[in-house]
């Protein structure tokens, strides 16, 4: 893989120099594209949500039926009872268009990342945990290390611990596919092609509700992720994700 544009050089293969490749170009480019498209999805998702901040379970639901729950926010439609005496301006035109355009960018970039990452050994090398690491005691040890903030930055600098690996795998292979699936399940046109994919979720309103909760989980991931980056040296970490390189003397700083 050494010399390939998209390949990361395995740390062990390089003699100890002051600067080593931390992230391959594949990871860096797709990371920042998905950062932008995910933020756009988040903002537009919130904008769309204001037109109907009520959630239901099953196939159908509207202002005349009992909601599963209602978000305590004002709405951009006068027909929705919210308890607020004002109506927000409608944001669904651009909101929906940008949401779907960003979804395309996320899905295509994500597919490229997964396919190329599999081909390149990115998941095997960087994300699949070692068999010995998948044990309750090992994971517990990492959690206590985190809570006591005793893990040295040295340890973290060059690879991911088992908790990080499992979290990234969860986000990449469970949460993102689930948010895409539930998003598509809301489409009447897609439902006509894959009716089973809607039925298995419990109906189109269930799909919408799951879509919302998975988005919340992704936001939680984002917050913890950025929090951890801050704790482990924001500047150095962000530079590593831009340039791919992380300098040795800085990593302990």
């Amino acid at each position: 893989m050494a010399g390939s544009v998209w390949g990361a050089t395995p740390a062990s293969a390089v003699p100890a120099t002051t600067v080593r490749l931390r992230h391959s170009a594949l990871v860096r480019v797709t990371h920042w594209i998905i950062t932008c498209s995910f933020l756009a999805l988040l903002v537009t998702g919130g904008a769309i949500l204001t037109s109907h901040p009520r959630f239901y379970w099953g196939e159908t639901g509207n202002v005349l039926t009992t909601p599963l729950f209602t978000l305590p926010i004002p709405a951009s439609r006068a027909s929705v009872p919210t308890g607020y005496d004002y109506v927000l301006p409608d944001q669904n035109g651009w909101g929906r268009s940008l949401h779907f355009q960003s979804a395309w960018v996320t899905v295509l970039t994500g597919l490229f990342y997964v396919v190329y990452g599999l081909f390149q050994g990115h998941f095997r090398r960087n994300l699949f945990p070692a068999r010995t690491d998948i044990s309750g005691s090992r994971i517990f040890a990492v959690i206590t290390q985190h809570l006591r903030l005793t893990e040295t930055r040295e340890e973290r600098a060059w690879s991911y611990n088992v908790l990080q690996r499992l979290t990234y795998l969860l986000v990449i292979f469970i949460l993102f596919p689930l948010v895409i699936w539930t998003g598509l399940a809301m489409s009447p046109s897609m439902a006509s092609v894959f009716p089973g994919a809607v039925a298995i979720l419990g109906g189109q309103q269930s799909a919408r509700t799951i879509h919302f909760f998975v988005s919340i989980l992704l936001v939680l991931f984002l917050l913890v992720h950025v929090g951890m980056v801050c704790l482990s040296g924001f500047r150095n970490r962000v530079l590593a994700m831009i340039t791919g390189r992380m300098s040795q003397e800085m990593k302990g700083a």
Partner: protein
Amino acid sequence: MTGISRRKLISTGVGAAAGVSGVAVAARLARRYGLIPPDSGGLYGPGETLTYAAQRFLTRHSMAREFARSQISKQPFPDEVGPLSEKFWRFEERQFVDWRVTVDGLVARPASFSLSELRSFPRRSQITQLACEEGWSYIAEWIGVPLSHILNLVATLPQARYVVYRSIQPDWWDSIDMADALHPQTLVTHAMNGSDLPVAFGGPLRLRVPRQLGYKNIKYLTQLTVTDNLKQFGKGLGSASPEGGYAWYAGI
């Protein structure tokens, strides 16, 4: 130039050239097979085009989900429309006996059908969901004449590509491609849940396009125009929705 830069440069160049020509070929194919929506021009044109092309590729013959009678919503929500015109209420006073739908454009036999004529045509009944872009929905039984039956009666010309449809309400119009227009579930609907279509739900006539969202299902239908070019209607974006920032294609 040092290290791998030459190889890198060549491979990047080849990659970029392949990418650009790939996009050009895709665009040409999309145009040829009618996969470019009329509102493909703006900032969100790439997204609208990808969505329309991908969904058309998958859905040309797919059927909207139909539900059991027991799943019909006990509380369907009609949504609000602006105040209805004087003209509408005059028809309503006469129980819509003189309500007509004209069919013109690229057809061999332009025609105008009264409500009672439409009610005497072969009818289709289906229990489908109406989903609004806002997120809410309901299931109802819709009864009407398949649009394809009307289009057969007037004999659309081979170059037909879209059907433009209008409400009696000013500036309320939309259009669908022939895949949706000829789809067996696209109905000129005159009844709902066993009785005449209520005014709040679009009565006397509403076009039901169940594979698209609620806003494509225009209420108070008065005119159908078959065309090969949407440029001549409104601002040329295919319907009133894109003029207000909403996508022309509403399959999602």
